[in-house]
């Protein structure tokens, strides 16, 4: 008992000393505090696991090169546990810790919570505003009716991805004329369905059937597959992800449905290994594909692989883009004791960043990232294999940021201070 108390005392004094040391250190160079909100525990823990390695990969070299005029970028990861309550709590904690730059790396509901928290804070503290960088939430609202001067989106929307998929597949004569829409029953799926409807004329196809399924509740997708078979589609569009997507592909392969699947989340870690041969021939609109980026792409992939032990896939690429654009914007700001958030926002809006797939920029009207996309097909001929399988993503076509861009939503009425 005594030894435990002694130990506790030692630990506390140690902590106090290190805090003092830290205080002494910060007096010289004030770190630029960034709060990274992401689920690290709970059922959504895989999301945090995906983003975590991308933070240091960008922040470390940035700090090694002097950071912002000698001030390092200090990214702290806060675990929101995948719940909106957790997100709200961690937001308060991060604000108390002095962070004013927030990166929201979660699902659409979590990003909505982050956005609500940011708006509330900014209303109450107009002289000390905070900014939100949304990494992976694809809900249309973030650049639509909820578009906000203090929030940026660093990923696509289902409209952008569906458009890219349809455009490339049409170009290559792989789209066909009969399209089926099999969507997860929440905002993302509904938006993908709407996008499939909207683009029917442009790309000359007919939507021959639609179905929506509950998210992560269905084990057996064979009825959905049989229903789709009845419509005789050439291509099935789906925004499903995770185990839902795997189950759909497996059910289709097992029952011998010969239809092309086009989606956006097939490159999530573990998916190819788990789906096996069922994934072959699936189309995916990817943010990053090393093969498509040529030498620059290969070099980027190799560097990431050395640092983290895996390829940059799925939303990891969005994590990298967010951090890269943030550091680049921070770097361009004039020296000072503290980051001016409004200056940072202007810098983010004006910055153009080179990235192995092309040029990245942020559209000022709705704060939607303008990014190149790669439409790829799962194939054994791909240059880089994934997940220890003999399959990988072979690029079909690389679309530039101009080609993937879709117009600003009419619902976006951004109020600029």
């Amino acid at each position, binding site marked *: 008992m005594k030894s435990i108390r002694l130990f506790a005392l030692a630990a506390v004094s140690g902590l106090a000393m290190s805090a003092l040391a830290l205080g002494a250190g910060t007096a010289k160079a004030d770190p630029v505090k960034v709060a990274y909100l992401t689920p690290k525990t709970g059922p959504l823990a895989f999301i945090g696991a995906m983003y975590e390695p991308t933070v240091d990969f960008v922040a470390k070299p940035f700090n090694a090169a002097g950071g912002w005029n000698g001030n390092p970028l200090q990214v702290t990861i806060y675990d929101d546990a995948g719940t909106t309550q957790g997100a709200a709590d961690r937001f308060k904690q991060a604000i108390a810790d002095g962070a004013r730059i927030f990166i929201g790396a979660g699902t659409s509901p979590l990003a909505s919570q982050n956005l609500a928290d940011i708006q509330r804070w900014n209303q109450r503290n107009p002289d000390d505003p905070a900014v939100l960088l949304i990494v992976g939430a694809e809900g249309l609202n973030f650049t639509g009716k909820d578009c906000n001067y203090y929030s940026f989106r660093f990923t696509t929307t289902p409209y952008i991805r569906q458009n890219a998929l349809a455009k490339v597949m049409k170009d290559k004569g792989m789209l066909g004329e009969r399209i089926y829409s099999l969507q997860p029953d929440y905002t993302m799926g509904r938006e993908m369905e709407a996008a499939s409807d909207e683009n029917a004329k442009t790309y000359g196809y007919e939507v021959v059937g639609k179905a929506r399924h509950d998210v992560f509740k269905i084990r057996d997708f064979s009825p959905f597959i049989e229903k789709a078979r009845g419509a005789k589609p050439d291509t099935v569009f789906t925004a499903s992800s*995770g185990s839902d997507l795997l189950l759909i592909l*497996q059910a289709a392969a097992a029952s*011998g449905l010969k239809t092309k699947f086009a989606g956006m989340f097939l490159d999530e870690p573990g998916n190819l290994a788990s789906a096996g041969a069922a994934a072959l021939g699936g189309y995916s609109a990817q943010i990053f594909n090393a093969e498509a980026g040529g030498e620059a792409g290969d070099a980027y992939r190799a560097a990431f692989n050395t640092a983290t032990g895996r390829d940059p896939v799925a939303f990891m690429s969005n994590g990298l883009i967010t951090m890269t654009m943030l550091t680049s914007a921070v770097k361009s700001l004039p020296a000072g004791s503290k980051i001016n958030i409004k200056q940072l926002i202007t810098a983010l809006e004006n910055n153009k960043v080179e990235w192995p797939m092309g040029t990245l920029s942020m559209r000022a009207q709705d704060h939607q990232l303008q990014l190149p996309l790669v439409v790829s097909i799962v194939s054994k001929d791909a240059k880089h294999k994934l997940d220890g399988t003999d399959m990988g993503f072979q690029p079909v076509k690389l679309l530039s940021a101009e080609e993937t861009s879709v117009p600003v939503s009419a619902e976006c009425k951004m109020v600029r201070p």
Partner: protein
Amino acid sequence: METVVVALLNGVIYGLLLFMISSGLTLIFGMMGILNFAHASFYMLGAYLAFTAVTIFGFWGGILIGTLGVALIGFVCERYLLRHVRSFGHVQELLLTFGLFFAFEELVKLFYGPYAVAYSVPESLRFAAFTIGDASYPFFRVLIGATAIVMFAAIFCLLRFTRIGLVVRAAVLNPDMVRALGYNVSAIFSAMFAVGAGLAGLAGAMGGAYYTTSPNMATELGVIVFVVVVVGGLGSVGGALIASLLIGILVNAVVYLDITFGQILATIGLVSQKTASDLLAVPLSSTAGVLPFLLMLLVLMFRPQGIAGDDRA
């Protein structure tokens, strides 16, 4: 016609898989009164154990180890955890298994990572058993169904026609008397729990290969097995079979129906055509996931003891 046959078949097989998982749960509840929240975790552990063993012992060895390994884990849980809280009553048992559920999930994430793992049916078993129209019917689905039927027959015969079954049923009704007659009631309960867990392990080893093996599989199935057991009647193996098949077929059938809630309500004159086509244009097929819960609600309202349950609960 072909579509109907395939749909029905799919429903039956899915129902049988549900039965495979939930039979252990209803067995444990019926015999020991323990509502085992960690039951779906046993399903997950079965899949992960099999996935680990497959590389060394081959696919069938993996299935065997998944089953026996989970039975052993179940035995240890009963012998060293549950037994200690039994004297405090069922609530404590329930809370303990609730805790086990989270512990198992985090343990699996710790060792295998948060993503799905590459556990799948071997190439040699990936062939069509038969074809109906354009649809080929995978052999492994048939195998899952057959295993479930054999399992049901085995449990039923064991409990009904053997001496072991007689002692077990007696131990449930009057443990003190059975103990006085010289039987080791504690050992019987441990064995019961191990068998129940092992059945879930077997279902996991087979289901994990056919569907996916990820740390979320327990959460995804945890609720539906409870629905099966409640609808069937807590403790009734036969009831669980009926409920599983009912839910399997219902969930499958509803996907094919191309009507919306609005259309149904408009037909019986509850809402106007306009409301039906915009506000209530929710397709019936998108309710496939919530339908089992609706069924549970109805059963609890009109027949609280379940389809085949006795009045004990």
